[in-house]
């Protein structure tokens, strides 16, 4: 594929992108307190005195959050650090009750890993993961309720996050999008993050720099904070890279700074920070011990890990003979893959693939339902396919039955019986129908016999019509050939 380049006045520029993705860990309670981690809730109800930073309150680490971080690390095929540690990141802000965030700065729980992405032309690229660590989320400041005051809701304060830091390996908006979607897919497969960007359970800080084609090393980068959709990340990279190219080409310099992406104006702008703004004064969190985990526990978690998207894809291709494209669609969500396998296992796999990617998806789209609340269960669909395979019904009737299933939710066999759609395989009945048709269309029979082969389709159609669509198509073909030849 041709590389992504920005064409400036003076030549071609390459884009260098690294992403820091904050993903909320799926857990019942917060990272260091027993308050609910659930999204939403009345203001300041999912808050304990620990989260509100009351004097003398102490953090106690949530085992499941650690397990989730380990699972995620394993899913990223990354190094799991048996020794990790929490540090305090000190800064004052209204939504940070203790005046410090507890985060793993120096010793993260997960080290180097990789994420494999596939681009639209099928090219595979590997994006390095530098590290992943656990940290606390902050609360929320609400600015639009009062003319002079901001209101503080601490429901989010202390919720567990994973920060997944990529290497600066990303070279285009498309790659950034593919990386984010892939990461999201892996996290959802693992059940470690729900990937819901609207609710903020995944958001990205985007580091962007540019360099001339062929140039070595990196130029100054800017960090675009808190971008909350894949599309915006891609747009932000595009406009930020262009901005930087314009500055470099006009002889300017890029300041290393934090910027915000405004998707309405489609521009990034500087988050002006005060002089000597940040000095986080990291130091080991003295209220917690270093986190030491056992290899045996990691092994246990690994053994219980669900199949990852890449593995599942390869397996589907092998076991069910689906194409690379089809396996991609079928594994996009774990629920789709599960549905597919329930149908395809023990059925005609090709038939299952075609039906799911065709009529089934179309029905979901049409009814606006998701696979989780599909009007047709995987078991029902499998039964339908087996009715086709064992010649109880033919493919055309199957479509009619399927539409009925979508509408009524009834089992296919029930519908077939109710409507009397069982396929006719009685040679005598089909022969009788054919004889009638041949007699009524003697002229066409003559034409056919004198070489107009195309008329065969006409006879098939007439026969099926006479049989109300229920005749076995193969038998119709065979009998027609024989009778027309005689």
């Amino acid at each position, binding site marked *: 594929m041709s590389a992504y380049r920005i064409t400036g006045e003076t030549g071609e520029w390459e884009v260098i992108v690294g992403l820091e993705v904050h993903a909320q860990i799926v*857990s*019942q*309670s917060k990272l260091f*307190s*027993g*308050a*609910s981690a659930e999204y939403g809730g*009345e*203001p*300041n*109800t*999912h*808050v*304990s*005195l*620990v*989260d*509100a930073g009351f004097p003398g309150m102490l953090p*106690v*680490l*949530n*085992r*499941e*959050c*650690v397990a989730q971080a380990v699972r995620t690390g394993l899913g990223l095929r990354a190094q799991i650090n048996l020794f990790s*540690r929490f540090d305090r990141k000190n800064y*004052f802000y*209204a939504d940070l009750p203790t005046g410090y965030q507890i985060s793993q700065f120096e010793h993260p729980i997960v080290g180097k890993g990789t994420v494999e992405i596939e681009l639209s032309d099928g090219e595979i690229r590997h994006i390095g993961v530098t590290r992943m660590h656990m940290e606390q989320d902050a609360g929320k*400041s*609400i*600015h639009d*309720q*009062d*003319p*002079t*005051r*901001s*209101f*503080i*809701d*601490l429901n989010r304060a202390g919720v567990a996050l994973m920060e997944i830091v990529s290497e600066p390996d990303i070279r285009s908006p498309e790659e950034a999008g593919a990386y984010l979607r892939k990461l999201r897919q892996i996290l959802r497969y693992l059940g470690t993050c729900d990937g819901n960007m609207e609710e903020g359970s995944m958001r990205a800080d985007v580091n962007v720099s540019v360099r001339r084609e062929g140039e070595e090393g990196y130029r100054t980068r800017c960090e675009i904070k808190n971008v909350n959709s894949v599309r915006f990340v891609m747009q932000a990279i595009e406009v930020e890279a262009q901005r930087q190219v314009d500055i470099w080409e006009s002889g300017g310099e890029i300041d290393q700074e934090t910027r915000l992406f405004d998707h309405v104006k489609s521009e990034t702008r500087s*988050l002006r920070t005060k002089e*000597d703004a940040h*000095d986080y*004064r990291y130091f*080991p969190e*003295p209220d917690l*011990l*270093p*986190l*030491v985990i056992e290899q045996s526990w990691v092994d246990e978690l690994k053994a219980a890990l669900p199949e990852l998207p890449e593995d599942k894809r390869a397996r589907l291709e092998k076991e069910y003979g689906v194409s690379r494209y089809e396996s991609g669609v079928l594994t996009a969500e774990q629920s789709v893959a599960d549905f597919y396998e329930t149908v395809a296992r023990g059925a005609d796999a090709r038939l299952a693939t075609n039906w799911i990617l065709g009529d089934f998806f179309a029905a979901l789209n049409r009814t606006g339902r998701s696979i989780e609340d599909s009007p047709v269960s995987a078991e029902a669909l499998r039964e339908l396919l087996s009715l086709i395979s064992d010649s109880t019904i033919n493919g055309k009737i199957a479509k009619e039955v399927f539409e009925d299933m979508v509408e009524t939710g009834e089992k296919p066999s029930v519908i077939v019986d109710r409507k009397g759609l069982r396929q006719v395989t009685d040679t005598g009945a089909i022969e009788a129908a054919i004889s009638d048709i041949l007699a009524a269309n003697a002229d066409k029979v003559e034409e056919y016999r004198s070489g107009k082969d195309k008329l065969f389709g006409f006879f098939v159609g007439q026969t099926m019509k006479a049989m109300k669509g229920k005749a076995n198509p193969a038998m119709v073909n065979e009998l027609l050939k024989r009778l027309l030849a005689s």
Partner: protein
Amino acid sequence: MSLDAKTVAKMARLARVGLSDEQVHTYQKEMQGIIGWVDQLNEVDVTDVPPMIGTGLAQPRLRDDQVTDGNCRDEVLSNAPDREGPFYTVPKVVE
């Protein structure tokens, strides 16, 4: 190491303790003295000595993932100097 007034003022801003210029001056002298005194630690050979992190006595302990706390808004807000309905308040933050 020398600790000048500018550094003290910077620390005061980082720590949000709001010092007047005069106080900066006073603290600078005292802090300079204390830092001069702690600089004797440079005499200690700490080659290959790991930093002490925790006393190494307690066993690492992890909590079960259960909701056991929260839902105590009245307590959470009980001491708030300025509260508005279910919220804490601060002067408007402009981003």
